[in-house]
């Protein structure tokens, strides 16, 4: 590969790479505001000016191609002077309202002001005023004074979301971001602009003023909004999820996620209606019970039915581990009626990220065995057989069957035994004889397999009673780490819930002693040793960005 010199280091580059890209690959970071690896080059902020030998003027590293033998100085006096000058220019009209700005703590401008600013300003005039708190669309507020006119949001909207809704208006230092006349900034991906805005000019209505960033911990997770399985970070303070942001993964979601996934996949974790502890029906009412007595009760009850009178319902919202243990449990009882419902929204998809399958793990649930065994009934016929009275006991994990349709709800009332694992109260738990509290995807270890056969990990970001944040290696915020008086983690609510695989394993141990797992890894090891597509895998290999399973063409998702 050809080589050029950056600050005395020999740096390899691919022809066609700019100075900034090639340097970045070599671990040399050149300051930038407007440049973004996933967007076109606009070259407007000028913070990336660098000195290149034999060139008459400084050049911008984001648009200048590296060439063989080129000698670049990113720390020379000339470069630093220009960088300081640009910083000074950006800051003269900036409101400097970091103390009330959501971006503070993850702000590029703030970061560079520390590392490249002069620390003082020669500007003694009155700052320009611009529009503040402009609602650009349903989710985003814009602060014109904080905006540094880098055009990232405009380019994102046009180039990535394919929705040309944003533009600059006015000229010179009156330039401001706006929507085109009659347009709203309402495409399905708007909130990504909040992430890529290098300052706090764009804020997420849902998160605005909720927390300083350093008060939150962030944990790698996977979005459960559809079968894409966008990689995310889950931001938690006081055991409450405050926001989700996308995590870069070029195999899955590039650096983006959709607004629906970002806004609507975590609130149920924080919700008031969480199932907190185990419930048994007494005299027609669900009453809180000890987990052990619920397990005793359930084990005893299940034995009263013939295996063809029992059905199990898994879930594409639950992990591979949960579904695997469910399938194994069913098999140990000789039950062949096992399946899970699909949640397909026909037509609700695009060629960017959004998929029609609104669950994160259909592929995984099927692979680990949640499908009718031999002549067992499929989901639809399980429901019909309940209606006709052939199936008398139903065991459901993490699905709200009664809410799918009125007919389903009516059918469930005909059962002699309904056992449900659920994280939240819903129409199905209202009909159940036993309700086990299952932890959500934010509270457990596990794996999902996305539409493309890529297996990806989730990790606990929120503690439940069974978790210990120190022992379980959970991430902590900057404050928590130091054990400061601000560490209020223990003050947050801790729900008494367990992973479905864990509940099932306890039940199985009690019933027939066929299964015993203490950790999600153990379940996964069992999956890896018994299911072809998972052969040889462990959590470390899946890693933070997942890995593609070896899927036989014949079973690739339709």
């Amino acid at each position, binding site marked *: 590969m050809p080589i050029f010199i950056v600050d005395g280091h020999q740096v390899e580059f691919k022809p066609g790479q700019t100075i900034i890209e090639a340097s970045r690959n070599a671990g040399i970071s050149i300051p930038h505001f407007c440049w973004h690896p996933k967007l076109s*080059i*606009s*070259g*407007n*902020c*000028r*913070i990336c*000016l660098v000195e290149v030998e034999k060139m008459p*003027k*400084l050049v*911008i590293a984001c*648009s200048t191609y590296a060439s063989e033998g080129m000698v670049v100085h990113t720390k020379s006096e000339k470069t630093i002077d*220009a960088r300081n*000058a*640009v910083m*000074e*220019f*950006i800051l*003269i*009209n900036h409101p*400097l309202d970091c103390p009330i700005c959501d971006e503070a703590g993850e702000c590029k401008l703030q970061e560079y002001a520390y590392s490249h600013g002069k*620390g*003082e*300003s*020669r*500007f*003694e*005039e*009155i*700052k*320009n005023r611009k529009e503040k708190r402009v609602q650009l669309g349903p989710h985003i507020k814009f602060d014109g004074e904080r905006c*540094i*006119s880098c055009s990232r949001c405009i380019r994102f909207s046009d180039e990535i979301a394919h929705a040309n809704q944003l*533009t*600059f208006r*006015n*000229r*010179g*230092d*009156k*330039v401001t971001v706006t929507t085109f006349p009659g347009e709203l900034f309402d495409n399905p991906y708007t909130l990504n602009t909040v992430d890529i805005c290098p300052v706090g000019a764009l804020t997420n209505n849902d998160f605005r003023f909720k927390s300083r960033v350093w008060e939150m911990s962030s944990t790698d997770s996977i979005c459960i909004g559809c079968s894409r399985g966008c990689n995310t970070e889950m931001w938690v303070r006081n055991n409450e999820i405050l926001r989700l942001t996308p995590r870069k993964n070029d195999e899955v979601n590039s650096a983006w996620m959709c607004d629906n996934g970002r806004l609507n996949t975590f609130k149920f974790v924080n919700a008031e209606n969480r199932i907190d502890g185990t419930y048994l029906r007494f005299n027609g009412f669900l009453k809180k019970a000890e987990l052990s007595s619920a397990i005793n009760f359930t084990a005893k009850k299940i034995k009263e039915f013939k295996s063809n009178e029992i059905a199990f319902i898994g879930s594409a919202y639950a992990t591979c581990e949960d579904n695997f243990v469910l399938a194994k449990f069913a098999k140990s009882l000789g039950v062949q009626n096992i399946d899970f419902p699909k949640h397909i929204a026909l037509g609700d998809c695009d060629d960017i990220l959004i998929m029609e399958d609104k669950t994160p793990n259909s592929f995984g649930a099927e692979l680990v065995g949640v499908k009718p065994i031999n002549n067992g009934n499929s989901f639809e016929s399980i429901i019909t057989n309940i209606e006709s009275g052939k199936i008398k006991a139903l065991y459901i994990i993490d699905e709200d069957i009664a809410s799918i349709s009125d007919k389903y709800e009516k059918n469930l009332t005909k059962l002699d035994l309904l056992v449900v694992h659920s994280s939240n109260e819903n129409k199905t738990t209202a009909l159940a004889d036993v309700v086990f509290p299952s932890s959500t995807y934010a509270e457990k270890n596990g794996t999902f397999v996305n539409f493309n056969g890529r297996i990806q990990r989730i990790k606990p970001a929120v503690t439940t009673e069974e978790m210990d944040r120190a022992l379980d290696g959970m991430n902590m915020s900057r404050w928590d780490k130091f054990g400061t008086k601000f560490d209020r983690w223990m003050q947050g609510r801790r729900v008494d819930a367990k992973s479905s695989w864990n509940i099932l394993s306890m039940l199985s141990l009690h019933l027939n002693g066929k299964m015993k797992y203490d950790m999600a890894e153990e379940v996964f090891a069992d999956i890896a040793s018994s299911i072809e597509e998972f052969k040889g895998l462990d959590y470390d290999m899946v890693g933070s960005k997942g890995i593609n399973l070896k899927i036989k063409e014949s079973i690739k998702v339709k």
Partner: protein
Amino acid sequence: MERIVLPDIPNLNQIDVYLTNGGFESFKKALSQSPDDIIDQVKKSGLRGRGGAAFSAGLKWSFMPKTTDKPKYLCINGDESEPGSFKDRQVFEDNPFQLIEGAIITCYAIGAKVAYLYIRGEYHKWIKLMQKAIEVAYDRGFLGESMKKTFGNDFSCDLYIHKGAGAYICGEESSLMNSIEGYRGYPRVKPPFPAQKGLWGCPTTINNVETITNVPKIISNGWEWYSKIGAQKHPGTLLYGISGHVNKPGVYELPTGILLTDLIFNTASGIPNNKKVKCVIPGGSSMPPLRGDQLEGIRMDAESLKEAGSAIGIGGVMVMDEDTNLLKVLIRITHFYHHESCGQCTPCREGTGWMEKTLHRILEGNGTSKDLDLLISVAENIEGNTVCALGDAAAWPVKFMIQRFRDEFEQYVKNEVTIPVPNKVHSMRNTSAPLANLHK
């Protein structure tokens, strides 16, 4: 001396008068030669661009790729918005057909089938005149498909007027192209240059109106004839637009390389009431100003003016007499560039406003000597660091006016002033004075 761009022929803007004076003969002559020959002749003639940078026209044309599957374009720049420039307008008014003939010769030379003539929006009257002339040219078979029949050749091209919408920045070649494409008038980051990737991503040449209007005469009279007119390294004539404190302001076509003093005192008949000259801006408001007491011997061509510390620009000579308040002049100029900055890149967007605000503060009597240094430093921080040359255009007047007239500017400032702290957060950070009370 013979005038090239604006010949002294009455009613030359009538097609029949133009034809009886050899109209479209140059194009016929051009057709008998290869495009490369034409480019070569223009190169050898020494014709340099009249739009500001005085770049060799023939050389620019030679950058156009010879083999490309994309269409090629010519853009003719008649945005003419620089304060002190009002010369292209004269071409529209008095010699539109020579401009049209220059356009088709250039199209032939560079292989373009379409040319756009970009005229500033405020020139309503001249846009109408030009549109009329273009329609006449189409009617008579000098443009469009019917050219083929008229000239008995396979070549034809179209010429369209694009009307600007009132932004100076659209005179900058790359924002001109964006503007034609229907986008905001934002300059593009270069490279790629227009000859590689111009209008709609296709190879494009951009020349000033006056540049193009010179072309027919170079072809008809030969490059040697042209190269001997005026200054050797910058031959031909210029349309000097003289304004300000002179007795006879106006547009004069004269050879390059004439004495600046001749231009002011003979051509424009000197200064009203025989006042002294304090300052001359020789090439349009963005060029570095010259001191009135240092004009002796300065010649009006690109090389000589460069040596004298300025530039030929578009040849708009602005003369200021001894009574002129240069602070007010500088404020007016700076206001212009502040107002016209497109706002795309940081140094120009932020710096132009900063300079104007500081100059206003000085005018209000609240400036110090330190502010003059600050202004120079801000100008230097803009210069060379921007996307387009408007940054330099805004920086140079400030930097050079203050440097060259420091004596006068010192009179506008005091040594000590108490600035009412308008920006508390900032001022808190840069003084050793007691902290401003933020709660006041």
